[in-house]
C-alpha cells in the first residue's frame, strides 16, 4: 500500500472531493446550538434560572399531563424552570471546558514538546511526573482540591487542568519523538536554527493536528468530569445551575419527577457524543493517510 499512497499524493490530484459531505452534520449542529445557547443564554431563557416559585414546584414537562406551556421542560423542587437552568448550565459546562482545556492542554503541549525534543534527563523527569499524575484516582484528587480550595468555577477548572495535562503531555511527546526523526529537523540544525526556533517552527506546527484532535476528544471528558464533581457536590455551588448538579438534585425525586435528572442527563450525553463524533471526524480529516480512500 505504501507505494500506492506515495503516488496518489495530492500534488497531482488536488483537493479530494467529498470532505464536507462526510462532516458529521448532526454533531456539528448540536455543538453549534450549544455554543449559541450558552452565549445568548439571557436572551433565550424564558425565565431566570434562579427565580423560585414554590406554587409552580415540580411541574412536569409541557407534553405530560399537568404540564404547562410556560415551563416547557417542567420545574424543580423550588419551582425553578428546568429549561432555563439547562440553558444557563450550558454556559458553565462550556466555560469550564474552555478554561480547563486551554490551561491543561497548554501545559500538556509545552511539557510534551520540551520533554520529547530535549530528551535525556529532562524527559525522564517530566515523564515520571506524568506517570505519577496519571496514577492518581481522578475524582478523589478533584474532591480533595475542592475541599481545600472551596467549591467554585475556579476550583473545578484547576482540578480538571491537573487531571488532563498529563494525558496531553504524553501523547504530544510521542508525536514529537516521531517528528524529531524527520530529516527537516536535522536540516534545521544544519541551517543553524536555535532549539527554540526548531521547536516553534518545525515541531509545534507538526504536532498541532494531533493536539487539536486531542482537544476535541477531551471536551466530552471535561464536561463529564465537571458534571461528576458537581453531582458529588464539589463543583459549582448553588444556586448557579450546572448540569451535573441538576442530575444530582433530581436524584431524590427520580420516582416522582423523572425529568429533573433525565433532561440534564440527556443533554450531557448528547453533547459529549457530539464532541466525540466531531473529534473522530477531525482526526480522520487531518490525517492524510486516512483521507486516501
Amino acid at each position, binding site marked *: 500500500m505504501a507505494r500506492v499512497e*506515495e503516488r496518489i*499524493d*495530492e*500534488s*497531482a490530484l488536488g483537493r479530494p472531493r467529498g470532505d464536507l459531505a462526510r462532516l458529521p452534520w448532526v454533531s456539528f449542529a448540536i455543538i453549534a446550538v450549544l455554543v449559541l445557547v450558552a452565549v445568548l443564554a439571557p436572551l433565550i431563557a424564558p425565565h431566570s434560572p434562579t427565580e423560585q416559585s414554590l406554587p409552580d414546584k415540580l411541574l412536569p414537562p409541557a407534553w405530560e399531563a399537568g404540564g404547562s406551556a410556560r415551563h416547557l421542560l417542567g420545574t424543580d423542587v423550588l419551582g425553578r424552570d428546568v429549561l432555563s437552568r439547562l440553558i444557563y448550565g450550558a454556559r458553565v459546562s462550556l466555560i469550564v471546558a474552555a478554561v480547563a482545556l486551554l490551561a491543561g492542554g497548554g501545559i500538556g503541549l509545552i511539557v510534551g514538546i520540551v520533554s520529547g525534543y530535549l530528551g535525556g534527563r529532562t524527559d525522564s523527569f517530566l515523564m515520571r511526573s506524568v506517570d505519577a499524575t496519571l496514577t492518581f484516582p481522578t475524582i478523589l484528587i478533584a474532591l480533595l482540591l475542592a475541599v481545600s480550595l472551596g467549591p467554585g468555577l475556579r476550583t473545578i477548572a484547576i482540578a480538571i487542568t491537573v487531571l488532563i495535562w498529563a494525558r496531553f503531555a504524553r501523547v504530544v511527546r510521542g508525536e514529537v519523538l516521531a517528528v524529531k526523526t*524527520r*530529516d*527537516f529537523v*536535522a*536540516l*534545521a*540544525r*544544519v*541551517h*543553524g*536554527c*536555535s532549539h527554540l*526556533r526548531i521547536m516553534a*517552527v*518545525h515541531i509545534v*506546527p*507538526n504536532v498541532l493536528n494531533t493536539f487539536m484532535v486531542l482537544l476535541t476528544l477531551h471536551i466530552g471528558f471535561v464536561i463529564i468530569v465537571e458534571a461528576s464533581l458537581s453531582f458529588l457536590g464539589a463543583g459549582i455551588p448553588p444556586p448557579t445551575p450546572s448540569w451535573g448538579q441538576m442530575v444530582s438534585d433530581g436524584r431524590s425525586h427520580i420516582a416522582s419527577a423523572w425529568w429533573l435528572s433525565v433532561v440534564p442527563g440527556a443533554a450531557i450525553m448528547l453533547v459529549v457524543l457530539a464532541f466525540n463524533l466531531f473529534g473522530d471526524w477531525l482526526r480522520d480529516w487531518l490525517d*492524510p493517510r486516512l483521507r486516501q480512500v
Partner: protein
Amino acid sequence: MLEERAIGAEPLIRVENLAKHFPVTRGVLIGRTTGHVKAVDGVSFTIGRQETLGLVGESGCGKTTTSRLLLRLEQPTAGRVLLDGRDIHALRGADLVRYHTRVQAVFQDPWSSLNPRLRVRETIAEALVVNRRVTRAGKLERVEEVLHQVGLPLSAAARYPHEFSGGQRQRIALASALAAKPELIVLDEPVSALDVSIRAQIMNLLKDLQARQQLSFLLVAHNLATVRYIAQRTAVMYLGRIVEHADTETLYRSPLHPYTKALFAAALPADPDAPRDDMILSGEVPSPIDPPSGCHFHPRCPFAMEQCARVAPELKAVASGHVVSCHLY
C-alpha cells in the same frame, strides 16, 4: 597522509583521524555501557574547492555518520574536521553563524526533508533568515534566484511541499541548500529515493550547479555508477574505515582492495552481455560493536593471509593519489 592536489593550497575541508563511537547501553532504569559501536574509526580525507568526493560503502560502513560529523549533527569522539584550517566543532559565536552559511546538506528522502507546514519560500530561506540580516525583499529575491537555478517556476515559492512530486521536492531541498551561498554541500544519497528517469535530471543539475557556483560536494552514496558520474575522487569505506581512496577514474579502472573489487563485482551493469566477474562474498558485514581483529575485512576476504587477522593494514600510497589499506600491496 593523502597527497595534496595543489601544493600550498589548503583544501576547503580537511578531515583528520575522525572517529565516532556510540556507546551501547543495557538496562532499562540504570543504563550500563556494555560496548561501543565504532561507526567511524579513524577517517582522514580532504575535499578541495569545486571538487566532489564520493564516499561509498554498504549500510553500516560509517559513511552517513561521517557526513553527519561534517554537518555538526554529531560530536566526534576523536579527530577533527577543519574548514579552511579551523576546527568546526570548536567554532563559537559569529564563526559558528558563518559556518552555517558555508556548509549545507541535501538528504535522501525528499518526503522527510521538507517541513510540510512551511511554504516552499520559508524552507528555502531558512538558512538566510537565521544567519544573516536580510530584508523581506532581499529574502524573496534570493528565493527566486535559487528557484530559477534549480529549474522550478517562481510560483513554487508560495506553495506547500505536498503539492510537488519527489523529483521537484529534491529540487526544493537543493534550492534550500543553495540559498545562503554555501561552499560545501553534503549530499547524502541525493538520488537514491528518486525514480530512474528523475535521477539523471537531478544528477545533471548537481553537476551544472557545481560548475557554475564553484561548489564542493561530499557525496555519500551506495550506488557506484552515481558516484562515478558525479565525483572526481572516491573513497571506499568498510566498517568505519577508509579502505581505498583514489581519483574516480583510477579507482574504477583498477580497484585494488579486495572489498572494492567485491563491490564492483556486486554492482550489476545494465548490460546482459557484461562479463560476469562473480566474486560473491560469503557472509555479511560483521557488527561494528565487535569488529574483526586486524583487517576488518579478513573474514570475508578471498585473499586473506595469516597476518590479516593480526595486523590492521595501514593506508599505503600505491600510486600518485591512490591509497589502499591492504597487506597485498
